[in-house]
């Protein structure tokens, strides 16, 4: 690899005007091509993001399949654009570079060409990734809002039920997220309480919510370039504490998972 730089061509055999022009043209076409692709992706995403946000907020439903499908279709289009760029790079840029090398064109110039093209390609890829991230953010469920809805619903329904046998009130002392057997305090009859679809989602969002609420602690660990293992341990403990606060019924189970996560981490440092 390093031997290449001692190549006498590096010092610079002059590049013929024909080659110089071809290099210039190919690079130009590559830049224009990628820019057009970027603009197309941008136009699609600029239209899609408010649309996805609107779809998310217009519905009260927790599982909205159409959003997922539309999002998936847009992601698919970006993939298609990326594939097009990849193919073009493989079929036009790389072969031209090989041609330059084979023709013995000044190595530094050839290298400059491929590096400039690669750098532009990386920027294109970055831009696609950034749009994908923004699409994801637009599609994402607002866990805090959903959690608030669950709390509000609980306030509304907790005094609303009565024993199906004797009519005595059955008070919900916590948010149940699975169908549960509740005993009537008056006649001991066992009632079966089935939570709403909304309440059942509590256990699914609890970890996301806990992670979002403690994300700053994970950031602190990462900002430190992962040097201070205790920062990670602190994050992990806080995240699980938060998680347990949201779903206390899962605490016993969560602690086992915590222990596993901690062990995994300790083995890596």
């Amino acid at each position: 690899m390093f031997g290449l730089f001692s190549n006498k061509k590096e010092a610079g055999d002059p590049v013929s005007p024909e080659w110089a022009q071809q290099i210039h043209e190919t690079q130009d076409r590559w830049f224009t091509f990628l820019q057009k692709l970027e603009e197309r992706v941008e136009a699609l995403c600029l239209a899609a993001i408010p649309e996805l946000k609107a779809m998310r907020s217009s519905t009260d439903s927790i599982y909205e399949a159409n959003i997922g499908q539309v999002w998936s279709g847009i992601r698919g289009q970006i993939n298609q654009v990326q594939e097009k760029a990849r193919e073009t790079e493989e079929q036009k840029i790389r072969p031209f570079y090989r041609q330059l090398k084979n023709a013995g064109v000044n190595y530094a110039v050839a290298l400059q060409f491929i590096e400039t093209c690669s750098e532009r390609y990386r920027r294109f890829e970055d831009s696609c990734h950034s749009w994908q991230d923004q699409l994801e953010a637009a599609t994402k469920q607002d866990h805090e809002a959903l959690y608030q809805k669950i709390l509000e619903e609980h306030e509304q329904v907790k005094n609303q039920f009565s024993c199906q046998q004797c009519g005595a009130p059955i008070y919900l002392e916590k948010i149940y997220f699975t169908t549960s057997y509740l005993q009537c305090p008056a006649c001991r009859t066992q009632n079966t309480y089935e939570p709403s679809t909304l309440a059942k989602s509590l256990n699914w969002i609890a970890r996301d919510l806990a992670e979002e609420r403690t994300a700053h602690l994970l950031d602190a660990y990462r900002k430190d370039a992962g040097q201070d293992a205790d920062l990670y341990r602190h994050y992990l403990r806080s995240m699980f504490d938060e998680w347990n606060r949201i779903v206390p019924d899962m605490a016993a189970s969560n602690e086992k998972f915590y222990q596993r996560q901690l062990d995994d981490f300790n083995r890596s440092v």
Partner: protein
Amino acid sequence: MFKKFLNNILGNDADQQKQQEPVVNPFQQQAARHDNEADDDDNDDDNVPVQGTQYQFDPHTQHGTHYTKDAFDAAANRHYEEMLANQDEALSENEKRNLKREAVTQLYLQWNGHNYDQLVQFEMANSLELTGYATQGFNQVKEEGNPLYEPIHGISLYDYAGIAHAMAQGVPEETILKAIGIEKAVWEEVNILWPERMKEDASFGIMTKYGEYFATAGQHPKLAHLKSGAAATAEGNPNLEQLKTDRYFYEELCGARTAAYEYGLDGAQWILENFGINLSDFQAVAMDWMTAQNQQFNSSEIQHYMDYQLQKQKEYSEKFAKEQGGNIADDIAF
């Protein structure tokens, strides 16, 4: 809940993936890496048998039958100790485990004639010991006496896979629970607690076993007779039979499903509508192909099928693109 449940089975739910922290199959990468290495191998072990020598392998341990496992383990340990002594810095447990794996790998290749596919198979058969992770199709999981595999409210992991299979087939929940003999309150706890067990299990043994069970879940004695609702029934569907026996057809439908999702369709539904195969049966067949592939590991064959799937995905993409009036950048040319 059902969507979530399907996603669990499909493994395409980001949240669930995060919860289970799935590992990428480390062996496929391994194989690729070795393939590259093989090109510029500077032959530091000239006294080893040449590649292509026919060795016999123990079907269980995948060790060559021309030596004993004890001899191998002893030699591997010596090799590892030497490598460890050459380390400048203190190693984490994971790094030590990787070093040990490297020592075992090097020795295995030396003793068994540089057969990289055979190495992958050996690593899969012994993955629990080498990497700490179980691999599907190698019977590494011992359920007996392991509290992680105790039934939850009387529902074993096999039952759980059976219920999941029936649900994804479209059999109504009520019908399934009645056949199993439990009520909703019991099921909803079971359906939370089995995944919790999986999260607890650092070896991924439960997930591996679950996958193995899922492949045969259609024959669960209490559930096999249930008829699915919306989803087409398994019997008598020639497409399903072909999916089981024709690897190319299987790869084609995998590619088609991916393409369908990329074009904004519900891929599972699309397969059901066009081929009458429900997601549950599809995934069970997928498990069987994966197991077979693991047990008879052949990297060039795997590559061949991957390429085929990709090619089919492309063909279906073109079809879907046509239906929607093209892709957004079709008119942009270099």
